C-alpha cells in the first residue's frame, strides 16, 4: 500500500508523528538516514523541562508534559521518565530577580514555579556548595532516557501500522502537481500527497531547496557522565544565563553538559576534552562531592539550531502539504512528542489545537 504521507527524519519528532498518524488511520512512511532516535534525539541530555522556555512555547510544552506523563499508556514503556523536578539556578541576586520575574510571567500560562533562596536550596539538597543566590523550582519537570524514547515511539508507530525504513537518506523533495516525490540516496522515489520534514540538523538544507529558508547552524552539545554514585541529587538542574546542566540517573551516574564539541567528519561530531574539563570543574564547584567521582564517558551529537534559538513548526508557505518541524535548537527533547501530535493534526485536519504561530518559518522572511 502506498503511503499517504512521508516523514523525513526518524528522531523523536518524526517517530511521534508516525505514531500519531498511524493511530489516526493514516499510512505514514518514515524514512530515517541512520537509526530511529539515533541522532540528537538519542544522545541529548535527557531533560524534560518546561521552566525557562519562552512564553509562546508553553502551550506546546504543556501538551508534551501530558504525553510524558502517560508514556506507558501511549508507547508501552516509561522510557525512564521521572517527574523529578527541576531547579533553575541563579548565581547572583540579579539572576535570582530575573528567574523570579519569569516565574510571575509564566504563572498565568499554567506553569507553577517556586522561588527559593540559596539557603533553601541547600536545605532541600545538601549536596550543593554554598554561594548560590537562589533558584526557581519546577516540581512538574523531569527527565527521561533519550536513548530509549525515540526507538520506543518508533516501535509503537510500527505496531500501529506505520512503515519505517532506516538507513535511508533523503536527497531531495520534488514538489509536483499532486503532492511530492521524495528521492532517497539509494535510488527510491516515493510519491505522497503530504510530507513532514523532521530531519533535525539535516532539514535546513532540504527546506532551503524549496525556498523555505531558516538561518541557522549545527551545534554539538558536549556531554559528560560519571561512574554510578550514591544518591546525590534527586532533581534535574540548569543554570540561568547558561552554564552547566546536570541530573543523576536512577542507576547513580551523574550526567551533565556544558559547552560544545566539534565536528570530526561529515555527520560525526565528537566531544572536546577542554570543554569536558571545564564542565567537570563547574559541576564539581556546584556539587563538591563530585570532585571525588570519575568520569567514564563523554559524547556529543549533531543538533540543528536556528538563528533565534527556536524551532520551525508548521506548513510550508509555498508548498501546501509540506510540514516543517526542525531546528529544535538544543531544547527539543521535551517538546518532541507533542510536535508529533501537532503535525498529525495539521496533516489530517489542516489546523491544530495548540498555538504554534510563533514557530512559522515566515518569521525569517526578508521583507
Amino acid at each position, binding site marked *: 500500500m502506498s503511503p499517504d504521507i512521508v516523514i523525513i527524519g526518524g528522531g523523536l519528532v518524526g517517530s511521534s508523528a508516525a505514531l500519531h498518524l498511524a493511530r489516526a488511520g493514516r499510512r505514514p512512511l518514515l524514512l530515517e538516514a541512520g*537509526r530511529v532516535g539515533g541522532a540528537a534525539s538519542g544522545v541529548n541530555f535527557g531533560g524534560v523541562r518546561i521552566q525557562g522556555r519562552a512564553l509562546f512555547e508553553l502551550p506546546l510544552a504543556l501538551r508534551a508534559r501530558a504525553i510524558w506523563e502517560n508514556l506507558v499508556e501511549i508507547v508501552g514503556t516509561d522510557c525512564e521518565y521521572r517527574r523529578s523536578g527541576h531547579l533553575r539556578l541563579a548565581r547572583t541576586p540579579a539572576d535570582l530577580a530575573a528567574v523570579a520575574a519569569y516565574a510571575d510571567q509564566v504563572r498565568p500560562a499554567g506553569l507553577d514555579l517556586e522561588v527559593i533562596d540559596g539557603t533553601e536550596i541547600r536545605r532541600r539538597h545538601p549536596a550543593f556548595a554554598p554561594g548560590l543566590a537562589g533558584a526557581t523550582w519546577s516540581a512538574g519537570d523531569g527527565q527521561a532516557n533519550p536513548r530509549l524514547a525515540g526507538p520506543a515511539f518508533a516501535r509503537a508507530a510500527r505496531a500501529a501500522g506505520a512503515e519505517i525504513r532506516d538507513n535511508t537518506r533523503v536527497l531531495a523533495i520534488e514538489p509536483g502537481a499532486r503532492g511530492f516525490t521524495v528521492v532517497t540516496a539509494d535510488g527510491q522515489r516515493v510519491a505522497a500527497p503530504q510530507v513532514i520534514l523532521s530531519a533535525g540538523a539535516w532539514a535546513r538544507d532540504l527546506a532551503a531547496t524549496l525556498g523555505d529558508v531558516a538561518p541557522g547552524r549545527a551545534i554539538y552539545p558536549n556531554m559528560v557522565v560519571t561512574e554510578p554514585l550514591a544518591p546525590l541529587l534527586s532533581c534535574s538542574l540548569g543554570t540561568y544565563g547558561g552554564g552547566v546542566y546536570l541530573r543523576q540517573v536512577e*542507576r547513580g551516574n551523574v550526567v551533565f553538559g556544558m559547552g560544545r564539541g566539534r565536528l570530526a567528519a561529515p555527520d560525526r561530531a565528537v566531544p572536546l*576534552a577542554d570543554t569536558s574539563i571545564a564542565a*567537570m570543574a563547574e559541576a564539581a564547584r556546584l556539587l563538591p562531592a563530585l570532585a571525588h567521582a570519575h568520569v567514564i*564517558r563523554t559524547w556529543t551529537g549533531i543538533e540543528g539550531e536556528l538563528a533565534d534559538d527556536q524551532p520551525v513548526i508548521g506548513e510550508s508557505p509555498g508548498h501546501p502539504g509540506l510540514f516543517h518541524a526542525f531546528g529544535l535548537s538544543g531544547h527539543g527533547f521535551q517538546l518532541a512528542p507533542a510536535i508529533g501530535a501537532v503535525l498529525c493534526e495539521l496533516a489530517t485536519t489542516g489546523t491544530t489545537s495548540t498555538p504554534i504561530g510563533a514557530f512559522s518559518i515566515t518569521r525569517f522572511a526578508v521583507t
Partner: protein
Amino acid sequence: MSAPIVVGAGPAGISAALTLVEAGLRPLVIDEAARAGGQIFRRPPPGFVRPPAKLYGADAGAGVRLHKAFDALGDRIDYRPDTLVWSIEPETIHLQGPAGRDRLDRGPLLLATGATDRLLPVEGWTKPGVFSLGGSQVALKAQGCAIGRRVVFCGTGPLLYLVAYQYAKAGAKVAAVLDTSKFADSVRALPLLAADPAKLVRGVYYLAWLRAHGVPIHYGVRPVSVHGEAVTGLTWRDAGRRLNETSCDAVAMGYGLRSETQLADLAGVPFRFDAGRRQYLPETDQDGRSPAAAVYLAGDGAAVRGAAAAETAGRLAALALLADLGHRVDTAERDALRARMNRFERFARGLDVAFPFPVDLLDGAADDTLLCRCEAVTVGTMRHAVADLGAEEVNRAKAFVRPGMGRCQGRMCGLAASELYARLRGLPLDQAGRLRGQAPVKPIPMA
C-alpha cells in the same frame, strides 16, 4: 614539529623508542605502568627478588634485554610513567598522570597499546577467585603470588598452557587444564605453526611437562558454572557433553587476547574486521602505518602476534615514522623485518586455528548470567534487547540495555556482547557492529 609520541612501553613501545633515539630523536614515551616492560615483561615492585628466569621463563633473556635497553635510554627520551593518554584530538593529546591532567601538542603518534584477555561470561565468572588468564599471570609476575592453591585453568589459547605451567612451577596445584578447543585443531594448525619452530617446540614442551606431572588436560570442554560463595569448584562438560566437576579454590579463564584499540579509534584510524582474530582492528600497512596522518601502530594493540613480533613491529613502525619524517631508512633491514613479520603473522594465524573461539559457549547460558559486569547486564537482557526491542546492531543494544556503558566502556565485555549479539541474530560477527571508543578511554577523576 613536535617530538614523536610513543604510547605504551611494552616490547613494541620500547623497541620503537630505541629506534627513534637511534635516529637522533627524543621521543616522548607515555606508559600507564610504573615501570616499562608491558604486561609480558611486567616488573615487580622494587624490593621483590624473584629472578627474571622465574618471572618470564623462556622469554627471560628478551625481557631483561628490553628492560636494560629501556633503562639505559635515560633522558634521551621524555618518559612519563604512571600516565594515561585519555583522549587524542587533532592537535593535542590529553594525559592523566601523577601530577594530574596535562596536555601535549601532538607530534607523530606511535600507538603500542597492547592487549588484554578476551573474556566470555559463564555462570559465576564474577565471583571472587575467578581471574582472567592474563590477570593470574600478572599476579604471579608482578606480585609473586598465586590466585589460589588449587587452580583450574580454563579457556583456550597459548596462555592457557603457559600460565598453567608457570603456576605448577611456582608451586601451585594445577587442578586441571580445560581447553575448549579440540586436540585435532592443534594438529590442523601445525603447518602454520611451523612458521616459528622454536615457539611451537616450547608450546609442546609445556603440554608435555604438564602431562608428565600428572595434570589432567581435557579438550573440547565447555565450562558450565563456577560454584561456591568464594570459588569451590567448576562444572564443565567434556567433549562428549557429559557433566564433570573439578574442585578448586580459583579459576583462571581466557580465550586468547584482544587488542586495545580505543586510542586508535580516537586518533581517527579506520577499522577493518579481522575474521581470524574475531575483532575490528585498526587499519595499517605492513609497516604499521595507518591511513590517519602521522599515526602508527605496533604490537598486540595493532593485531595480537605476541611479544617477539611486537618488538619487531615496534622497530618497523618507528622506521616508517622516520621515513615519513624524511630520515633515510635502511631498506634491506626493513625488508628483513617485514619478512619476519610475515612469519609471525603466519604463526599467529596458526594459533587462531589451533585455539578456535568457542562460538557456541553462550548459546546455553542461563538468562541471569552476567554479560557486562559494570552495568550488571545479563545474557537474558541482551536476548530481550534483540528479540523484543529490535536492537539493529551492538551499539543499539548498548543504547537500549547498557552493555559496555560502565566503567570499562566495553573493554572487558564488548567482544562478548558482539559475539552474543551475532549469535542471537544468526549474523556473521562482522555484521554485529563494533562498540566505538570514546574519551576518556579509562575513567579519569573529575578534579
